[in-house]
């Protein structure tokens, strides 16, 4: 079996599992959860085989390209089932398959009501997540992107906490409102390419579009900006960036544990992934113009998320706000537009998935034991549940960036990237502004350590404090048990990867670096032209000539090319 069919099988196995769950679910909770575990573990194993075979530097690994919507030749909508991995999607693909196993294991006892439907939805969600990161067709991506909303809507709405109906609706409508605009933006990109660069063919393949729009960038710049804003609407809500994050804490708090793990671990990353996959390489000029704004939003998110997290009394809500803060870091790295930042941001996507996915899982386990998530009702639990406390500490340290764990690598790369952008290669107009952003971002690290360690200290250390009444009908006479093997296997793989990435980041970075350096190259060109002369951008460019040669440079830029490239020294310092 070659890698292409293996990848296809990995993606469609969960769908087949979900369909089979319709029948398996009738045999009750036990059958449903065992079947779901078998399917997710098999998918995870397959995904690891595919990911392990991924050669560094490949832009098109395990590609399957089948005709789908178009059918006959000459059909207008030649949307294809175009699936494959590159350095950007590969780690998120692996992470998705891993977190799904965790999700099944943390739901093992918690989900009793309509278990068949629950695991069916979970498998559908896995299908959507795997598809998003492997899609190489712009519309196929959107289909998977939107499809993930349906299963999560059910997961939150049926198995969530008290306010679940409202949370599910808000989550869905909020996300959809942004993503329909993204939809228009994606269509506009395809059609612009059709009229100006495609030879009378509608092209939907992402690599082809990237290549073509590099030669014929979208002009005038106002169009490019409009399309950028359309894409931004969907992706920013998904990330979520600062002013449009309000759906997230609500959805997180109301969702069942598995829902939170997947939402934080995978679904939020679709937003940042969308920026790197579409906004930056397809619309580089607009991305450069938007850069300072987005960096400000990101840093506001970092600081705001951290400050609000400090004030929370509910553990889950605290971690939800920490997500807002951490994804600000991802965005900061990605929009620093240099190799270090882009790589750090991409790595941080995986890191956040591991650590926050793990944190939500731990919180879920605590909730199963104590039926509360209130910080003040708990204390000194490390005595009662030492193993759980151990994993909590690992995830916390990962989250705050303790050296030796993965969070450190990502955070440092992001910050160095950002400082590099602010001090060495900035358009003069934004220099001060970007320097303020960089400095503010560092305070986010400090605040992050503060709220996370404070949380751990209050809940796990100090005098033992357990709620007497557990809210529900029953009362635990004997002390709550520590982790069982099931819970151990839910968390241990995450911890292994946290340590592995922390000790050997090169294994992961080197494989995604070639793809990311191409992304960086697309935007670097726009960046040089904008540092040269911002006002020249919207001087009308003719469609045929590549605009770099056409723009009249009024002020010769200093050769700043060198500073965009990471020196070996810088990289090795990070590794």
């Amino acid at each position: 079996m070659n890698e292409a069919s293996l990848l296809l099988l990995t993606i469609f196995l969960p769908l087949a599992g979900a369909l089979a769950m319709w029948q398996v679910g009738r045999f009750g909770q036990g059958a449903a959860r065992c079947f779901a575990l078998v399917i997710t573990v098999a998918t995870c194993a397959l995904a690891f085989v595919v990911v392990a075979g991924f050669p560094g530097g490949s832009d098109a690994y395990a590609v399957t390209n089948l005709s789908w919507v178009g059918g006959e030749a000459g059909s207008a909508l030649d949307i294809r089932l175009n699936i494959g991995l590159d350095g950007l999607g590969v780690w998120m693909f692996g992470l998705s398959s891993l977190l799904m196993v965790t999700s099944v294991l943390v739901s093992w006892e918690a989900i009793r009501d309509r278990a068949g439907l629950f695991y069916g939805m979970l498998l559908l969600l896995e299908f959507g997540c795997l598809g998003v990161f492997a899609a190489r067709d712009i519309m196929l991506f959107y289909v998977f992107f939107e499809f993930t909303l349906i299963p999560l809507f059910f997961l939150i709405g049926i198995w969530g906490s008290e306010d679940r109906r409202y949370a599910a609706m808000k989550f869905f409508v909020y996300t959809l409102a942004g993503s329909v605009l993204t939809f228009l933006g994606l269509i506009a990109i395809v059609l612009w390419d059709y009229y100006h660069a495609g030879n009378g063919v509608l092209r939907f393949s992402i690599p082809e579009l990237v290549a073509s729009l590099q030669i014929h960038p979208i002009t005038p710049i106002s169009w490019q900006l409009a399309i950028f804003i359309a894409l931004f609407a969907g992706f920013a809500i998904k990330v979520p960036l600062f002013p449009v994050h309000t759906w997230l804490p609500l959805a997180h708090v109301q969702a069942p544990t598995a829902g939170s793990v997947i939402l934080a671990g995978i679904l939020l990353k679709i937003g940042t992934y969308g920026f790197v996959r579409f906004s930056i390489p397809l619309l580089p000029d607009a991305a450069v113009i938007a850069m300072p704004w987005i960096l400000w939003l990101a840093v506001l998110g970092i600081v705001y998320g951290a400050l609000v997290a400090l004030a929370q009394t509910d553990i889950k809500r605290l971690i939800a706000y920490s997500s807002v803060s951490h994804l600000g870091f991802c965005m900061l790295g990605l929009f620093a537009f240099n190799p270090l930042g882009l790589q750090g941001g991409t790595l941080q996507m995986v890191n956040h998935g591991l650590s926050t996915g793990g944190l939500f899982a731990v919180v879920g386990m605590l909730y199963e034991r104590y039926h509360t998530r209130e910080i003040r009702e708990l204390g000194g639990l490390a005595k009662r549940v030492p193993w759980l406390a151990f994993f909590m500490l690992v995830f916390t340290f990962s989250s705050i960036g303790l050296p030796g764990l993965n969070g450190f690598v990502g955070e440092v790369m992001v910050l160095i990237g950002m400082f590099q952008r602010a001090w060495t290669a900035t358009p003069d107009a934004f220099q001060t502004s970007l320097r303020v952003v960089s400095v503010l971002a560092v305070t986010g690290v400090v605040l992050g350590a503060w709220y996370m360690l404070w949380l751990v200290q209050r809940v796990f250390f100090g005098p033992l404090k357990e709620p007497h009444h557990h809210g529900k009908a029953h009362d635990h006479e004997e002390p709550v048990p520590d982790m069982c093997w099931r819970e151990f296997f839910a968390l241990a793989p995450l911890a292994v990867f946290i340590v592995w990435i922390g000790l050997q980041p090169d294994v992961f970075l080197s494989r995604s670096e070639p793809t990311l350096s191409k992304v960086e190259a697309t935007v670097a060109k726009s960046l040089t032209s904008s540092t040269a002369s911002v006002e020249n951008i919207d001087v009308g460019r003719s469609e045929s000539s590549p605009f770099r040669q056409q723009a009249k440079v009024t002020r010769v830029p200093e050769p700043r090319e060198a500073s965009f490239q990471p020196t070996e020294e810088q990289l090795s310092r990070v590794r």
Partner: protein
Amino acid sequence: MYVDLETIKLLWPELILVLLASWIYIGGTVQQSRLWWTLFSLAGYVVAGYAVFSGEARLWYGAEAGNAYVGSGPLSVDYLGHIVRLFAVGVGFLFALVASAAARRELASELLATLMLLVAGLMLVARANDLVFLFVSLELVSIPTYVLLYIGRSDRATSEAAVKYFFLSILSSGMLLYGMTMLYGIAGTTTISGAGESIRAAMLSGDSLVSLAPIALILILAGLGFKITAVPFHFYAPDVYQGATNANAGLLAVAPKIAGVIALIRLVVVAMPSVSEYAWQLTIVLALLTMTLGNVCALWQQNIRRMMAYSSIAHAGYMLIGISVALAASGSYGGVSATLFYLIVYAFGSLGTFAALVSLSSEQREISSLEELAGLGKTRPLAAAAIAVCMFSLAGIPPLAGFWGKLTLFSSSIRLALDPANGSLAFWFILLAIGGAVNAAIAAAYYLRVVSTMYFQSSKVEIKACRRNTASLAMGFAALVVIAVGALPRSIISETERAEAVSAQPRLAIQPSASVEAVAALGDTKNARQLPTLQD
């Protein structure tokens, strides 16, 4: 207008349906079995469907297949008509299943026969190439609808709904007729395809009668606006749907819309391309108003039929996007095919929902309020799943059929806007696409409310499980179509793309610079081949 044997031969699927309907009317007085007449009429639809398919197989499939044979007689033999006829037969088949479950035993035969006449009317609308023929066909859709509304249930609400629908429908027919007479006055011919060319010629020669064309256009838009429930001619819909039975509301949501949209394509896109400049501006405004008003009002509804009425208003707005695109520019941007695809997708989504409501209702109790659906996910999982699928499709969430409908509509609109040849139109059509997108998000809110009521609330009222319900067959079939078209949209999209040829009429271009080409294009009869005789 002349009728000869050739014409009759082209119409024999419709004749079969009318003859069978008459047979059911007569036979129904003797034999009152619901099962018997249901099977009979289902068989009738199958035969009619086969007749549509095989009768013109030589024209559409195989080596000599083409797309746009324009007949010179009262019939337009084109691919648009062909697929709408097939679609109408399919819709008839499903509604026969629904009607059979909803009808009282002693009225079953009348209901099924009337439905069959209505389907024949829909098929004739799809075929009409003559103003009189089109008008009569539209009446053959309307009159059975009045009857169906009356015999659906006999209480005050239903009677009120039927009377309301009757009077407003008559009014709209009057307006349509008035518009048609003006059209005839300008063109001097009742042939639709001929009218397009005569109006163009009249415009080029500076005939003063042409100044009536905008009035004709407005009257026709008003008349057909009633049928497709476009704002501001929509206001009857919520009351009528609410008063009607679920089965009839479903029929109202689908049948007049098919007839209205096809008539709109024939009368405005084909017959009046020369006045398209007024037309697209009007339809854009109508589209934006219709979508927004429909969706916003639907948000507050508690009665499910009323909600679906507003939803059907909103979807009419979406279809007008495609019509506007087809009107605005002479190039082929896929406006007609997008409208047609959307119509089909919408019809199955709506039909599935109403069929599910019928299958959940019993003769004693008709499901009306949204609250009655609470807990359906547990008590009736299949029906709940079918409704959920239809709701997500109507909301346009991938990978269901409705998503591809939105994709084709939005992309046709943006395609027109981005084409460098239509610089001045770009703004309006971008606005239209954005309006459509924003509306998709608003619409999701109330469709999701239905899903969340079914799945996230526990049931308050026990819904009795009724066995042997043919409506659940229709429901299941519609839901499967929605899923299948979502997974493999190619099957329908490629069909509707072939029907696009109907809009490729030469017209006066809007840009003055391009008018030379437009005049030159007048002689272009590439698409209008002579109708081959059907001898074997």
